C-alpha cells in the first residue's frame, strides 16, 4: 500500500473537533498550586530590593520568592555555544541585581488559587533605581552600568564570506546599495504558554506538562539548572496551540514552576496571559540589512556585501545569536554570487529578548536579497524576472556548496533546478497575464502591482533523530518519537510513513510524541525538520519492525518466515489470519518471545533545501493607502510530499502569517522602553477579511538525496518570501516610483514614503 503521497485526513482532527483533548490550561492535579509572575515594570533599572512581606501573608499564599531566593540557579543555557564569551549574556531565571526589560521576572507568588496568586502579586513592591534604557543598536552605553557590554551594546560579531569581494567591486560596472529594515515581530500562537510541574516523591524529579518543540533538550537543561539526575526530569507534551518557533524554548517560567514544585512538594501550574505573552515570549526579526552589490551591466551580481544589525533585546536566550548567523548564511539565496562578505553585529537593548520565529533569519535575508534584485532591475531597467534568471544557480551546479557555514554546518544546497522552477511558476500562474491585467487596471486608475520573489529554505539536519515502533497491548503499533506536534499535522505524516513501510492501514498506528521517558533521544521540532528527520527514522524503524514481526510470528506459529504475509491488521500464515492484538497476546503468553520493538536512528550529513517562488498581487487604495493582497501564488519544491494537502496547509498558513509580517505586524516601544504592543488590539495580525485568493503548486521534481524518502521540509516555505513578494508588488503598484524597504508596509509607512517623493504622489485626491 502506497501511503506516501496521499492526502489522507488528519489523524489529529477527531480529537480536536470533539474537544476531547486537553491543552495544558485545562489540566489540573490534586493539591495543585498556581504561580503568578511579578514582572519588571521598568526597561532598565538597578534592582535594590523586592518587598514581599504583605504578599507572603496574603490569603491563599504558600510562598513568595524573588531572585535572591534562587541565586543558586544558573542562568538558562544555550543549546549550542558559538563562543564562550557569550555565556555572560544568558538570562537569569529571575532578575538579580538589574532589571533589563519590561516583563523580566522579578518575583513569583505560589498560591492555592490563580486569582489569589495574582491578588498577592499586586502587593509586591519592586524598589529600583531607574536608568535610561538602551533602545537602539549602536548606542554607546555607560560603561559603569553596562560593564558587560564592550563600550557599545554590540555583543557579538559574525563574519562570513568567500571570494574576492574587493576585486569584484573594483571592477564593477554598477555598484548598487540598499538599506532594508524589518520591524520587531513575534509569532503569537493562539494558545499562550503554560506549564505544570508535578513533583516526584522525595523531590527526586518532576513531570513537566506543557512541553513542546524540544522536550529532550529542555529535559537536559532543566536537569542541569536544577541539579537533578536527567532520569528524574520527564517532559510531557499534550496538545499545543501553535508554535512557530517561539513556543517550547526553555523560558524562565518553565524553570520556576519546576523549582517551586520541587521545593514545595506540590504540583505547580502557570498559565501565561496574553499581555504577559507579548512581554515574555521571544520576539524576532528586528534587523537592519545594508546591501552593496557589484553588478555587471547585464545585471549579473559579481559580489555582494551585507551588513546586518540585529536588535537582540536584553539577553541571549536559548538561541543565542543564531538568527543573525542564519541571516548571513542564507542571504545569497538561490543566486550564484561569486564573492560574498557578510558582517552581522548583535546588540543588546532593554527590550524583550529575541529568538527564532518561523523562517528565522531567512524571512529577513530573503526580504533584503530580493529587494536588491529588484533594485538592480530598476537601476539597469531590466525585467526583475530576467535579473533573477541571469543570477540563479544552475542545475548543473547541484549540489551547490555555498562555501560558508550556517550555525557551524556547511551550507550545501542539495538538489534542484531553480530556473526550471521559476519557469514552471511563471507558466502555472501565468505571470504575463497577471502583469497584463495589472497594467490594464493601472491604466484605468487603479493602483495594482505584481511582485515576485524567490528563496531557498533549509531543513535542519544538524541533530540526529531516534524513532521506535512498538506493538502495544491493544494491538496498535505505537510510533514513539521525541518530535513535537504544534498543530502542523505531524502525527498524520509520520503515521503515513510507518503505514507505507509496513503496508498497514493508518488506524493501526498510534503516535506517542514528546514524552521524554518513552524515547531516549530527539532533536525536536524546528527548522522544518520533523517529517524529514523523524520520518526517515520511522521509515527505517518500520523496515526493522516488519522483519521482526515476520520472524516473531513465524516462531510463535511454528512456521517459516517465507509463508508469512502481512495483511490488513496483522499477518497471514497458510490462510490463517492473525491480528496484531492476537499476536501481542501470544507474545505475552510465550516464555520465549520478546516484545516487538524496532528502534532506528537517522542522521544526515547534509541539509535538505526546499525552495520556491512567491508571486503576490496587491491593490493599494490611492487615498487611504491601505494595501490589499488580492492574489498569492506559491510554487514550492518539496522533494517528495508525504501528505500534499498538509504541505499546502503549511504553505498557506505560513504565507498568511508572512502577509501579516509584510503589512501589519510591529512590536513597538515608547522612548522610555515601555512596550506599546501588549494585546491583539495593538499587535495587528491578519483576519479573514485579509485573505487573498491563494494558489499553491507543489513540485516533487527534485527529491532530496539527503534522506531515503527524498523529503524536504514544509514548515517555512510559506512565510519565507512573503515580505519580499508583497514589497515588490507594492513597488510595482506605484510603477517603481517608491521602493518599500521597510516591513511592515502599513498605510502610514506608505504615506511617509510617498511624502518623500515630490511628484505629487501623495495628493492622489487631486488626480480626480
Amino acid at each position, binding site marked *: 500500500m502506497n501511503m506516501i503521497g496521499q492526502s489522507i485526513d488528519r489523524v489529529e482532527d477527531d480529537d480536536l473537533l470533539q474537544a476531547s483533548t486537553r491543552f495544558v490550561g485545562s489540566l489540573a492535579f490534586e493539591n495543585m498550586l498556581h504561580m503568578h509572575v511579578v514582572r519588571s515594570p521598568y526597561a532598565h533599572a538597578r534592582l535594590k530590593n523586592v518587598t514581599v512581606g504583605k504578599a507572603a501573608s496574603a490569603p491563599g499564599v504558600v510562598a513568595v520568592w524573588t531572585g535572591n531566593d534562587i541565586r543558586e540557579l544558573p542562568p538558562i543555557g544555550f543549546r549550542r555555544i558559538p563562543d564562550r564569551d557569550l555565556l555572560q549574556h544568558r538570562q537569569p531565571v529571575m532578575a538579580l541585581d538589574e532589571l533589563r526589560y519590561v516583563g523580566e521576572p522579578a518575583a513569583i507568588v505560589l498560591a492555592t488559587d490563580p486569582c489569589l496568586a495574582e491578588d498577592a502579586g499586586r502587593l509586591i513592591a519592586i524598589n529600583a533605581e531607574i536608568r535610561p534604557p538602551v533602545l537602539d543598536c549602536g548606542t554607546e552605553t555607560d560603561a559603569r552600568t553596562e560593564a558587560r557590554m564592550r563600550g557599545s551594546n554590540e555583543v557579538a560579531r559574525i563574519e562570513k564570506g568567500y571570494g574576492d569581494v574587493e576585486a569584484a567591486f573594483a571592477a564593477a560596472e554598477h555598484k548598487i546599495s540598499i538599506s532594508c529594515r524589518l520591524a520587531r515581530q513575534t509569532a503569537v500562537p493562539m494558545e499562550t504558554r503554560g506549564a505544570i510541574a508535578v513533583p516526584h516523591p522525595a523531590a527526586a524529579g518532576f513531570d513537566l506538562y506543557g512541553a513542546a518543540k524540544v522536550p529532550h533538550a529542555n529535559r537536559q537543561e532543566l536537569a542541569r539548572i536544577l541539579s537533578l539526575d536527567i532520569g528524574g526530569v520527564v517532559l510531557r507534551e499534550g496538545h499545543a496551540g501553535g508554535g512557530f518557533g517561539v513556543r517550547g524554548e526553555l523560558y524562565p517560567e518553565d524553570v520556576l514552576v519546576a523549582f517551586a514544585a520541587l521545593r514545595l512538594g506540590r504540583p505547580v501550574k502557570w498559565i501565561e496571559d*496574553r*499581555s504577559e505573552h507579548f512581554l515574555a515570549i521571544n520576539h524576532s526579526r528586528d534587523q537592519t540589512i545594508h546591501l552593496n552589490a557589484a553588478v555587471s551591466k547585464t545585471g549579473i551580481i559579481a559580489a555582494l556585501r551585507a551588513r546586518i544589525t540585529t536588535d537582540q533585546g536584553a539577553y541571549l536566550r536559548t538561541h543565542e545569536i543564531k538568527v543573525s548567523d542564519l541571516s548571513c548564511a542564507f542571504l545569497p539565496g538561490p543566486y550564484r554570487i561569486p564573492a560574498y562578505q557578510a558582517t552581522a553585529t548583535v546588540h543588546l537593548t532593554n527590550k524583550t529578548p529575541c529568538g527564532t520565529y518561523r523562517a528565522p533569519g531567512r524571512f529577513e535575508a530573503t526580504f533584503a536579497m530580493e529587494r536588491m534584485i529588484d533594485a538592480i532591475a530598476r537601476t539597469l531597467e531590466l525585467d526583475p524576472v530576467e535579473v533573477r534568471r541571469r543570477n540563479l544557480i544552475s542545475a548543473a551546479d547541484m549540489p551547490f556548496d555555498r562555501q560558508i557555514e550556517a550555525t557551524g554546518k556547511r551550507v550545501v544546497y542539495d538538489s534542484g533546478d531553480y530556473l526550471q522552477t521559476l519557469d514552471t511558476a511563471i507558466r502555472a500562474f501565468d505571470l504575463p497575464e497577471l502583469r497584463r491585467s495589472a497594467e490594464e487596471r493601472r491604466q484605468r486608475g487603479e493602483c495594482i502591482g505584481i511582485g515576485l520573489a524567490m528563496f531557498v529554505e533549509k531543513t535542519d539536519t544538524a541533530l540526529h533523530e531516534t524513532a521506535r515502533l512498538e506493538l502495544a497491548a491493544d494491538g496498535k503499533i505505537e510510533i514513539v518519537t521525541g518530535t513535537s506536534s504544534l498543530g502542523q499535522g505531524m502525527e498524520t505524516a509520520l503515521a503515513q510513513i510507518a503505514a507505507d513501510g509496513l503496508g498497514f492501514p493508518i488506524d493501526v498506528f498510534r503516535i506517542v510524541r514528546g514524552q521524554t521517558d518513552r524515547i531516549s533521544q530527539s532533536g525536536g521540532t524546528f527548522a522544518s525538520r520533523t517529517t524529514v528527520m523523524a520520518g526517515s527514522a520511522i521509515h527505517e524503524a518500520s523496515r526493522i519492525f516488519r522483519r521482526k514481526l515476520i520472524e516473531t510470528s513465524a516462531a510463535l506459529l511454528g512456521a517459516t518466515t517465507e509463508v508469512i504475509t502481512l495483511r490488513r491488521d496483522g499477518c497471514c500464515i497458510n490462510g490463517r489470519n492473525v491480528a496484531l492484538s492476537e499476536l501481542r497476546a501470544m507474545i505475552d503468553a510465550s516464555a520465549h518471545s520478546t516484545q516487538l520493538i524496532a528502534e532506528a536512528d537517522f542522521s544526515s550529513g547534509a541539509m535538505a533545501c526546499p525552495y520556491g517562488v512567491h508571486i503576490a498581487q496587491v491593490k493599494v487604495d490611492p487615498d487611504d493607502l491601505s494595501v490589499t493582497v488580492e492574489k498569492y501564488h506559491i510554487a514550492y519544491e518539496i522533494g517528495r510530499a508525504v501528505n500534499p494537502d498538509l504541505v499546502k496547509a503549511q504553505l498557506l498558513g505560513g504565507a498568511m502569517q508572512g502577509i501579516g509580517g509584510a503589512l501589519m505586524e510591529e512590536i513597538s516601544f515608547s522612548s522610555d522602553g515601555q512596550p506599546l504592543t501588549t494585546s491583539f488590539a495593538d499587535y495587528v495580525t491578519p483576519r479573514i477579511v485579509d485573505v487573498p485568493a491563494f494558489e499553491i503548486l507543489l513540485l516533487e521534481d527534485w527529491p532530496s538525496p539527503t534522506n531515503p524518502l527524498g523529503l524536504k521540509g514544509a514548515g517555512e516555505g510559506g512565510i519565507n518570501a512573503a515580505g519580499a513578494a508583497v514589497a515588490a508588488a507594492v513597488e510595482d503598484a506605484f510603477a517603481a516610483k517608491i521602493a518599500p524597504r521597510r516591513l511592515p508596509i*502599513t*498605510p502610514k509607512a506608505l504615506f511617509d514614503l510617498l511624502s518623500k517623493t515630490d511628484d505629487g504622489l501623495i495628493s492622489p*485626491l487631486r488626480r480626480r
Partner: protein
Amino acid sequence: MYPASFRYHRPSGLHHALELLSRHKADAAILAGGQSLVPRMNLRQATPENIVDLNRIADLSKLAVVNDVLEIGAMVRHQSFCCEAAIGFLSLPSGFAELLGRMADTIGNLPIRLRGTIGGSLANASPKAQWALLSFLLDADIVIENAGGTRCERYTQFVKGDGRTTLKPDDLITNVRIKVPPAEWRYGFAQLAPQPNRPASAFALVAITLEDARVRDCRIAIGACTPVPCRLHALEDWLSGRRASVSGSDDLVEIAAAAVRQQGGESQPYIEHLAVVATTRAIAQAVEC
C-alpha cells in the same frame, strides 16, 4: 488575567440600580455590555469594589419613537441596529435606519456588537466611538438619572474630552434621544485606520439635503482624530448652496483639509490626510446615494 475581587449586584429595576449607585458612589462601576470595562478589569486597570450589572433591567432596553424623537434605551445593543427585526417596527426613514445599521456594523465584531450597548459607548466617550460621532452630528440628548432625579444633556455638552464627561459617580445614562431626521436627508459615513483591522483613526459622518442638484443644508462631523468628535462648520458653510457635483472637486479637498487642520486634533500629517479622505468620501457618498 483575573480581575480583582468585587461585590456583584444585579438590580432588577432601575430604582434599585440608582439606589446601589447612590450607596457606593465612586466605589461602584456600572456593567452594561462589559466589552470595554471587563477587558480593563481583566488587566486590573479597573478595580471597582462593586459592580452594578444592568443586564436584567428590561426597561433600559426599550426602543421607541415618541413625538418624532427616537428614544434608545441605554442597554440597547449595537447589533440591534443591524437587524431589521429589532428596529423595523420604528418605521424610521429608510436612509436613517440604513445609516444606523451601517455605523453599527463597523463596531468591533459580531460577538462584541451583540453585547456592547449604546449607553456604555456614550458613557465611555471614546473619540473612536461611532455613536459619539452620530450624537455630535444629530445633536443627540442623553437622559441621566440618579437617586435625586433626572436630567437631560446635549451630548456635545456632556463630553468634556477623551473619556471625560459630566457623569457623576451615582449617575446612570438611561436613554438617548435623537430627533428623527426628515426622510429627505442623505448620509455618508467613512472611516479609515492607519493599519488594517484597527479601529478608525479618522471617521466622518455627513448629512445633506439636495435641491435642484445643489446642496441645500449639510452637517459634517469628524471624529477619532480629535479628542472629541467635532462639526466642520466652515466646510458646512462652504458646501451649502453649491452644486452637488462639487463633491469630487479639488476645491472641496482643499477646503476640507483647511477645516480639518483648523480642528488641530492630530498633529500627524497622515492622520490629517485620513480625516480629509474620510470627509470627502462621506460627502461623495451622501451626494451619490
